[in-house]
């Protein structure tokens, strides 16, 4: 299409405008974390790292980070096992309900978090109440694992489809048994897809708040919950800004890393 110079300039400025729309709020949060004023009058009068220094003094941040990491690791471990199993089954075997299963994997992430959250909440209460047990950290792990399965599944499935089966057949023709073939051929070939899927699953779990809210027991607080609970307290606003800035930087890294590793999908499994 021969676009006129004017049309090109128009498109370029619209793109530039949209990119500013995407980045300005994030930059504002980062700048605010260096704003020494407690009320955050914009623009900041001066810059200082005073709130960064107080990060560890604030009550609750470190325990919240700890429980977020625990939940993330647990959910990622479960998602790695289940997601890999489904990916292998779907790519290597034909069975009744295959299409339904590949749709079912997407369900927990396609349905709004609040639906998954309430559904699991109702079930947990139905089974735990008669036993006099309460929601706890493990119920959050179950909730997160459910929607993390899909990112591992997507990554591993893409890799398996690309690899084909000829290497495994060659290995078996040369006398290796099923376990040896898996250990020496298949696993090394899908390892990086597992790492990429695992990183994305961990990032997804670390960021989740809705499912967490409905599956967490009293006294359990993950980092997103801590942010949400302290957001409305004017006293805590400076620390929230610091944690938020930290998260912006921390999040981008594992995702960038997993994109570099996998190279299978452009959107990294969230799409």
């Amino acid at each position, binding site marked *: *299409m021969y676009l*006129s110079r004017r049309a090109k300039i128009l*498109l370029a400025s619209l*793109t530039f405008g*949209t*990119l500013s*729309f*995407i980045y300005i*709020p*994030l930059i*504002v949060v980062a700048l605010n974390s260096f704003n020494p004023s407690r*009320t*955050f*009058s914009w*623009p900041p009068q001066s810059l200082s790292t005073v709130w960064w220094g107080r990060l560890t003094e604030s009550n609750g941040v470190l325990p919240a980070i700890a429980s977020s990491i625990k939940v993330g690791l647990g959910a990622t471990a479960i998602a790695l*096992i*289940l997601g890999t*199993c489904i990916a292998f*089954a779907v790519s*290597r*075997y034909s*069975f009744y309900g295959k299409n339904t*299963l590949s749709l*079912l*994997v*997407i*369900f927990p992430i396609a*349905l*709004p*978090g*609040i*639906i998954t*959250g*309430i*559904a*699991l*909440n*109702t*079930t947990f*209460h139905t089974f735990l109440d008669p036993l006099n047990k309460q929601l706890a950290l493990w119920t959050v792990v179950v909730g997160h694992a*459910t929607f993390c399965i899909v990112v591992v599944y997507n990554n591993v499935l893409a890799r398996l489809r690309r690899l084909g089966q000829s290497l495994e057949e060659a290995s078996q023709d040369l006398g290796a*048994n*099923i376990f040896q073939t898996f250990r020496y051929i298949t696993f090394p070939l899908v390892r990086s897809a597992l790492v990429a899927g695992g990183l994305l699953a961990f990032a997804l779990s670390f*960021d989740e*708040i809705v499912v967490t*809210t*409905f599956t967490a027991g009293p006294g359990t607080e993950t980092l997103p919950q801590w*942010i*949400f609970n302290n957001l409305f307290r004017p006293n805590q606003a400076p620390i*929230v*800004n610091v944690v*938020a800035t930290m*998260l*912006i930087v921390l999040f*981008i890294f594992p*995702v960038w890393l997993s994109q570099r590793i996998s190279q299978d999908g*452009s*959107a*990294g499994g969230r*799409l």
Partner: protein
Amino acid sequence: MRNNRINTWLYRHKGARAALLLALPVLWLAVAYLGSLAVMLISSLWSVDSFTGNTVHSFSFTNFHTLLTQKVYGTIAIRSIGVAVAVTVIDGLLAIPIALFISKVLKPKFRSVVIALVLVPLWASYLVKTYAWRSMFSDGGVISWALKPFGIHGPGFGLTATTITLAYLWLPYMILPIYAGLDRLPNTLLEASSDLGASARTTFTSIILPIIYPAIIAGSIFTFSLSLGDYIVVKIVGGTTQLVANVIADNVGTAGNLPFAAAMALLPIATILGYLFVVRRSGALENF
């Protein structure tokens, strides 16, 4: 030796291998997760004893009766769907030019850089991004500061802030499918259109739009359903605005009326399924 027997047995029984792989995932997803959804659907027919606060496990249509007869819920439903539609339209209008620019104007070597610029914030924490808009819209925040010289007040927390924040959050979900659609569209087709005398505008409306239509629909599925199910954004920047999702959340949390929340949750589920059913014919779903 034992290892070898298991191996031989597994080698001979392909079905057994598949069954072993599938046992755990099916138990988790089909039994536990789908089972939970089913329990939730059934629980929408239960009720809560207003005196003891216990759940009454007997079936009645009280919850649905309340939902259909009390006018406030109808208003909230229409408002929520309106917000979801507005978010989808805003994202579509923002996404088409940027996708067009990246795929058809930018030189290939800059393309991946700009796409990365669009993608990276998708992974910045959802809560942090919402929080960022709180500092944009707050009293004395960036927006009211920027509008001050013009003598205009910022919109503050409310429906406008909610719509803009949701549009912000889901924008990459609209840009990516449209970009992918445009990327597959050969440039020669556009050149042919120009050679045959079509203006840029005609090429856009009669060549580009019809071809990227399924991609727009695919993006709209995300923007629409994500907006409809979100209650965190409206709590953070929505002021006192009530949308379906935060009414559901409040009924689980403060009001402790899980059955009513479940009944209310059927609205977004039904709307999203209905939307999927309507757009199924566009071919957008084959992109997944």
